[in-house]
């Protein structure tokens, strides 16, 4: 039986899809059969980030409406074994996701996979609620910035009140904080919320910190999940995230500023 993990945030543009692609790829690289589902109906992007946009034939909405079988809609990732992608529809609207339809897909995928990663749309409407409803665990992607922290707090409240686990009175969804676009130098300068600040505000366990990096754009430009960008901080940070998620103890990296020269420190830079 698969574990269902939602990647969510409330706010847009904080790195949900980047994280979904990298995290799902990381689980697959570790040998776990993984499927990643795009819940952003009408704004399909996970396919682009994973580089499979030209292989999309059927999508999750087709499956819900009985126009295609689940197996026909699943796309095998070209970067690693064990990873499949279930794209969303680019033409339908968010009401195309029905509660029963999503439940049936989850049930079928649960039999075949170890992990189901749900890439949530921004906002707190239907798509986002569908993405988090079945979750066993939630990765809350947060930037060290006021609006992102506030929206993360909001989505945490929704997970606690409106997920299947909450409704059924079961053990609550396991919540993880993932800080992205972290700039240690700006934190040191007192111009960006620190890891401790965000943790103190949101009060959920930290899964990892992804440093701000130009490699993320380089990766999405090419349709390669960031975890495959060998030798970059971002790839290493995502590998750590996956390892911690699987229960390994990994110290935080890339959270301290790189050492700069005396003159640069004296005059700023």
């Amino acid at each position, binding site marked *: 039986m698969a574990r269902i993990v939602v990647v969510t945030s409330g706010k847009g543009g904080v790195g949900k899809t980047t994280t979904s692609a990298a995290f799902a790829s990381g689980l697959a690289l570790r040998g776990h059969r993984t499927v990643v589902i795009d819940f952003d109906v009408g704004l399909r992007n996970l396919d682009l980030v994973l580089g499979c946009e030209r292989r999309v034939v059927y999508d999750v909405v087709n499956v819900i409406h009985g126009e295609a079988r689940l197996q026909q809609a699943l796309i095998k990732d070209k970067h690693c074994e064990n990873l499949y992608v279930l794209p969303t529809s680019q033409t339908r609207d968010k009401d195309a996701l029905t509660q029963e339809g999503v439940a049936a897909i989850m049930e079928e995928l649960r039999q075949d996979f170890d992990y189901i990663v749900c890439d949530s749309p921004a906002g707190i409407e239907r798509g986002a609620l569908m993405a988090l409803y079945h979750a066993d665990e939630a990765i809350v992607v947060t930037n060290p*910035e*006021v609006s992102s*922290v*506030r929206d993360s*707090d*909001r989505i945490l*409240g929704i997970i606690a*009140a409106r997920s299947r686990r909450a409704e059924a009175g079961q053990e609550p969804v396991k919540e993880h904080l993932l800080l992205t676009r972290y700039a240690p130098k700006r*934190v*040191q*300068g*007192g*111009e*960006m*919320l*620190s890891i401790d*600040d965000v943790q*103190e*505000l949101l*009060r959920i366990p930290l899964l990892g910190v992804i440093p701000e990096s130009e490699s993320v754009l380089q990766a999405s430009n090419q349709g390669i999940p960031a975890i495959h960008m060998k030798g970059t901080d971002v790839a290493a940070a995502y590998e750590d995230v996956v390892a911690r998620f699987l229960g390994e103890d990994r110290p935080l990296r890339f959270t301290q500023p790189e050492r700069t020269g005396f003159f640069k*420190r*004296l*005059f*700023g*830079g």
Partner: protein
Amino acid sequence: MSLLDYFLGTRKKTASVAKERLQLILAHERAADAPDFLPALQAELLAVIGKYIPVDQDKIKVTMERRGDYEVLELNILFPDQH
């Protein structure tokens, strides 16, 4: 921030401003998410207390707030002056 900025104290630490603002707004919004029985609880408490002491509707406040791992139900009643 450069050392010159540090010694001259020219730059304000905006991160701490952000943190303080968030602490306030999150506490407020979490309180707003409180269970919706609060208005009913307030009305019933008012009725009970009103049997013994005359209290104005707006002199009683019931709030619920999360503090760390526990929730605090706060009941505030302002009694009229004894004259």
